[in-house]
């Protein structure tokens, strides 16, 4: 009997003819991704002269034919603001995924190319690309796209007003190094040196405790200890001042998750009901209620942070068995980045409650964000709180500071300097980009 879709078992499919090439990333690439230069467009400098199109076409087709260029300048007559459409060579290119003949490939040099031999000019790549950067040749209907002139873009060289630059961006890039160093030092201190001090630290008559542990303790014992109160107050003040910096910079389990994220691929999805991010508040409430019911700090027995801090050395509680919780929860990284922190962590939930009174905020000004398909900030955000769709629409996304862990990856990565730290009461950034 013929299969319903008329494909016989012995017929070859595209996977047989042209198997998808898996991206080869060395361990070094995963931890220290290479900074690759890209073409940066400044609409304030663009006069719409079309030299980029002209020059690009001379390389593409050997004649002056702007309709055959791999870059297109869209002139907004009403606003006078021009927009250049060209390939951004995304890290995860949608055009490559969309191409039915696998003609689109991303090379090891980070350049996305079309292999003309396999391209059928179906245009699915253009439809998939948020920028519609694979352009259809006005003359031959072929699909053309920028290949960065193999490292020396002619459009950049010929732009008379320097509206196009070939650069690695204006990003800070040093924040990453500082954060990793702080995370490493925090991990070493909390897990290897000051064993168990995260859960409770006592120096003479002065004591500090994990805020979630302290909260559970209050419910479990019905008493308010000075150490718990002090800790809650200190963490409250710090979180109001700096946001959930603990999650992004100090938390040893967060550090482990960041490392794991670099190694394991994302394979699975999570149920949609979790996306509201309310589950962690439920777990916090459950931990408090459980502590009240059972008379001890229920969540602390499975707390991955506490486990890391206690399960090594002389103060270790279970010596190994408890450690199983760490790889178990780290396995959640198979779904989304920092999915434990996003959806489940009650420590993060408590900090999020405190952070609702935040003094600082992170803003991404759509006006400064000059390339709506760049969305590098959204890509690098471990908490997934930057709305890429808003950016694509040219709008400033609102960043919920209760969910922001203050890792500053967005500031670090943005090549346009559009991500900024502002005080809560400072005026917002322009909501709509002028295009």
């Amino acid at each position, binding site marked *: 009997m013929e299969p319903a879709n008329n494909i016989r078992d012995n017929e070859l499919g595209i996977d047989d003819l042209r198997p998808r090439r898996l991206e080869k990333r060395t361990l070094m690439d995963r931890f220290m991704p290479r900074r690759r230069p890209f073409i940066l467009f400044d609409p*304030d400098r663009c*006069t*719409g*002269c*079309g*030299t980029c199109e*002209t*020059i690009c*076409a*001379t390389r593409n*087709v050997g*004649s*002056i*034919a*702007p*309709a*055959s260029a791999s870059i297109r300048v869209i002139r907004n*007559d*009403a*606003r*006078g*603001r021009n927009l250049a459409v060209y390939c951004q060579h995304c890290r995860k290119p949608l055009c490559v995924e969309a191409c039915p003949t696998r003609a689109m490939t991303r090379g090891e040099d980070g350049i996305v190319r079309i292999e003309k031999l396999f391209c059928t000019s179906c245009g699915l790549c253009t439809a998939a690309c948020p920028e519609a950067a694979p352009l259809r040749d*006005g*003359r031959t209907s072929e699909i053309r796209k920028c290949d960065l002139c193999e490292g020396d873009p002619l459009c950049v*060289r*010929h732009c*008379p*007003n320097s509206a196009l630059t070939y650069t690695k961006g204006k990003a800070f890039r040093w924040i990453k190094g500082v954060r990793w160093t702080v995370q490493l030092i925090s991990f070493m201190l909390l897990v290897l040196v000051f064993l168990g001090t995260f859960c409770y630290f006592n120096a003479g008559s002065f004591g500090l405790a994990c805020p979630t542990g302290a909260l559970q303790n209050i419910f479990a014992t019905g008493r308010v200890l000075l150490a718990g109160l002090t800790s809650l107050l200190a963490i409250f003040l710090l979180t109001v001042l700096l946001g959930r910096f603990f999650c992004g910079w100090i938390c040893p389990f967060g550090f482990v998750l960041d490392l794991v994220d670099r190694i394991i691929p994302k394979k699975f999805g999570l149920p949609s009901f979790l996306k509201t991010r309310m589950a962690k508040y439920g777990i916090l409430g459950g931990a408090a209620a459980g502590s009240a019911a059972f008379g001890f700090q229920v969540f602390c027995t499975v707390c991955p942070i506490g486990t890391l801090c206690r399960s090594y050395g002389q103060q270790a509680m279970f010596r190994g068995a408890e450690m199983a919780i760490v790889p178990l929860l780290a396995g959640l990284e198979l779904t989304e980045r920092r999915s434990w922190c996003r959806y489940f962590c009650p420590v993060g939930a408590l900090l999020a409650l405190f952070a609702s009174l935040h003094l600082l905020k992170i803003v991404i000004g759509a006006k400064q964000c000059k390339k709506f398909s760049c969305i590098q900030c959204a890509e690098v955000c471990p908490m997934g709180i930057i709305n890429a769709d808003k950016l694509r629409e040219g709008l400033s996304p609102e960043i919920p500071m209760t969910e922001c862990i203050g890792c500053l990856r967005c500031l670090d990565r943005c090549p346009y300097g559009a991500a900024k730290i502002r005080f809560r009461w400072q005026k917002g950034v322009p909501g709509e980009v002028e295009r």
Partner: protein
Amino acid sequence: MSDLRTAVVRLDKRTAEVVTPDGDLRWESIGAALNLALIERYGAESLVFGGGPLTGTLAPASALLVGSFVSAWPARADRSAPATSTRHVPLLLTAGPDFRFSGIDHLVLLGAAERPTLLHIDGGRVRFVELPPQAADMPSLENLLRRSAPPFRSAILTSPAADAGVHFASASLGLKGSLDKAGLAGAMAAKNLKGILLGGSGGIAFVAEDLKRSLELVAKLKGERKKTGGFVSVVEAAGGGDCLKVLKGAKLRDAACFHCPAPCMVHAQFAGADPRVPPGPKQQNGLLLLDHMGWIALAKRRGKGALSLLAESIRLGLDPSAVASLLPAEGGKEGLTSDFAVLFDLAKGAGPSPSMSSAAADLTFGVSPLVPGTGEEACRRTALAFVLGVCPLFLLRFPQISGDLAAFLPAGVEPACVKRSAERVITQG
């Protein structure tokens, strides 16, 4: 040199053929001079469009398309400016290159169409396109065309004002206006031609050395201009230095024609002053200040309201210089509202009607001056630009470049031919 493909369109018979001019035309004249030769060949009632040998090439500012015609029309003299002389109208931005990328070098329009006609040129072919329903102004016409006509990169459009027989109607390059101060819109309207759409999907050949030359010239010019310096210098040269204060508060952005390294236009975004629109939180208008002279004339007459009036002139397809001369010396009690009413009447042909546009009265060899006070040298340079196909303002601003442009000339075009053509344009204008 290209084959000089010339499309001869008989609007009355709705036929089009593409021919290659024979030897005497092909090598004797170039650019606007070849336009003149084609007018001589096909008769004084023909309307000719053509670029120069540099139009659309890698030479800087190679953006010029010239519309040439003899201004008196035997059958419908009321629709054109009355003086009988040859006129050349510069069409800039991307019209020239797109014209050549569409596969033809010159277009000769003969006869008058029976019904309103639209031409679409692409791939070396001229097609008659069904005209969308009547549009009241330029923006709505362009919007209609974008939706219903075949794809095009540039458009040369006439307005209802030209149909109404307004002498100072101005052709428009889409929404941007143009430098038509010599009656091209009237000439097109007399032929019942509503517009020419340029597909521009093709290309033209180039020599590899041109890339290097272009890069060198751009580098040479880079140091000679500052941001918005181009616009300011042209306005000052045109005697409008004191008008620049009118632009205070407007957001200016440089704008340039095809492959021009020294932009002399600005796009001005300004707070809304359109009295017909209810005041809102964000009433922002924007327009391209392409016509320096027109803007200066309006600014001298109405000060702050000049930008709004210029935008309205472009919308209605009127020459701003003529509009400025026809506005009452003092603004009415209602301010811009009464001025807008005057413009609306002018566009319908109901307002005061001078014998010809004030700008057209100062024609030099058939070209309305782009900056006033042009001497003999400037006249020669303008003629050179018209035969080469380069922006005349660019050549006036950077006279030192003209020698370098010769290197971009295609093989077959002798310097003597350029000189001869320029002289012909000056003497026959």
